[in-house]
């Protein structure tokens, strides 16, 4: 009899494992399972490797190395993206530029993500007038187009790596706040949170141990999309000559410098442009994949559609 009860309470272990492997494929598996997610993941990993190589100087040629015998050479195996008017290898330059761009983009998203997520959690959990004030403020920030916000901040602060990151990140804060607030609003009244409240858990424990893990998916999706946007925004700023000061050269600056050469040496424009576009597509696709993973309902809908 006691054995039977035991069986009722605890299902056989092999069944537990079967359930686990069926339900819990993990984040990686779920992202890998969607086509866009897989493409995105591969591109993002390659982008990050390329950026790290560029930052550490692990490039086919030293990016600043001028080779007078190889001026304006087209695309070839020895120079994947050709060379510029000083005989510098465009591919090596683009890797280094990617390093700078991604560093700024990542810092920007880190700033936006931390402030915006906290703001969204607070607005959603505390509700009432705290929420009203935060959301009002968010609306106001939202009214200033993000790139103009960035330009204004760069004017005031300057254009070092950290300044650029702040300038770009601030514009994305309201989006994090909005995206995080609504699920927190729903979670606040979920049974397990109520149970925790009844058990006397502290507010910070409820927020960080119970609510935060449940919005991780939403935040991950937003972070991926934010990175894509931040790369474009950073490229735009440095295209306008408001990027980090030399000798740091980001991708946008390479594009702007090659624009006068583009008619005769298209590869000087194509190389850095391609790196920007591929990186942005990668982060956008990864965002799609993460969204599918976080919300299986959207996945089936998308497949049906």
């Amino acid at each position, binding site marked *: 009899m006691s054995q039977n009860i035991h069986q009722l309470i605890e299902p056989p272990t092999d069944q537990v494992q079967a359930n686990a492997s069926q339900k819990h494929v993990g984040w990686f598996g779920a992202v890998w399972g969607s086509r866009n997610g897989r493409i995105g993941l591969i591109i993002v990993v390659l982008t990050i490797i390329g950026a790290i190589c560029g930052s550490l100087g692990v490039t086919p040629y030293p990016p600043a190395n001028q080779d007078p015998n190889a001026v304006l050479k087209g695309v070839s195996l020895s120079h994947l993206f050709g060379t510029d008017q000083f005989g510098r290898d465009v591919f090596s330059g683009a890797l280094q530029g990617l390093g700078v761009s991604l560093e700024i983009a990542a810092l920007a998203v880190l700033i936006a993500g931390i402030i915006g997520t906290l703001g969204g959690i607070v607005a959603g959990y505390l509700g009432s007038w705290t929420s009203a004030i935060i959301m009002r403020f968010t*609306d106001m920030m939202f009214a200033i*187009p993000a790139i103009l916000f960035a330009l204004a901040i760069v004017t005031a602060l300057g254009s070092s790596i950290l300044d650029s990151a702040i300038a770009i990140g601030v514009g994305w804060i309201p989006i994090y706040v909005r995206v995080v607030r609504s699920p927190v609003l729903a979670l606040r009244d979920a049974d397990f949170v109520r149970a925790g409240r009844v058990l006397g858990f502290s507010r910070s424990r409820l927020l960080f141990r119970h609510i935060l893990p449940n919005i991780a998916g939403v935040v991950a999706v937003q972070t991926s999309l934010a990175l894509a946007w931040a790369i*474009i925004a950073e490229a735009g700023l440095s295209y306008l000559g408001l990027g980090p000061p030399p000798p740091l050269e980001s991708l946008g600056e390479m594009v702007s410098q090659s624009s006068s050469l583009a008619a005769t040496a298209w590869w000087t424009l194509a190389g850095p442009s391609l790196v920007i*576009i591929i990186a942005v597509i990668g982060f956008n696709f990864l965002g799609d994949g993460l969204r599918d993973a976080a919300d299986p309902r959207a996945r089936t809908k998308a497949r049906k559609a």
Partner: protein
Amino acid sequence: MTIFSFVVRRILSMLLTLFGVSVIIFVVLRLLPGNAVTAAMGVSVGLLTHAQVAALNHYYGVGQPPVEQYFSWLHATLTGNLGISLATRESVSTLIGSALPVTLELALFAMIFGLIIGVGFGMIGALHPGRWQDDLGQGVSVFGLAVPSFIIGTVMVTFLASVFHYFPSSKGFVGFFTNPWLNFQQILFPAITLSFGVGAAIMRSTRAAVLEVSNLNFARTALGKGVSRRAFVWRHLFLNALTAVTTMSGIQLGYLFGGTVIIEQIFILPGMGRLLISAINNRDFPVVQSVTLIFAAGFVIVNILVDLFYTMVDPRTRER
């Protein structure tokens, strides 16, 4: 809620938002470290007339605590004193008066092209889900969202010049009323460049909205009772998806304003964006402040209009 009280409420909320926006801009440009107003004024003051110095002092609220500086600025702005450009010593309202029409024209054309691309591909995709038409549209939107406008612009300028030997911007910008045809040629390509990103975003929301509507019961009923295909597509599907499309268009306007800044640099158009960038390079704060404020105000006002528009069109949104 009656329409009247809705409109009043919206306008009050708009005024509050605009007030907040002006505070944010003030804080960012005037109170952050590295602010060079005083330094810049010190250098330029000798070149200005007495009346200009007085106007600027009022504009900046020189020598007052921050809160009063802000209200001095607000008062100056509301009474039409947008400051004096420290670089060109012209009044900022004159500069903006000549730059604003260019940017508005550019944004208007870009929005029209964006709507054509977006609604067109979005409708076609949603009417043939999963088929090649849909895949084509999706592909276009992936690139529209991923390719920064300055790359499209650079490629376009290069191509027009080197392949077609066509330099629409070489003659200097011509206003619409001076020479409409040349003006159109000069606006056309920058507007097309800007419209890709806008079009991609509008396309995504059009497609999603039309797909959602076409799964609803009334759509099946309409098909079942034999409504003609054209009426079904435009009157039943599109009209119901219009809310989503207008909302997205309103949001995209912010992107468009931001985009004009870069595009005007590439195509050498004397609009607000070019004014802004040269002001930033000269650390010409009155210009930066006013241009940013006007862009933000335009964005807020258009989005209120969008809200009002679909409240009129779509009674469902009034019940909230």
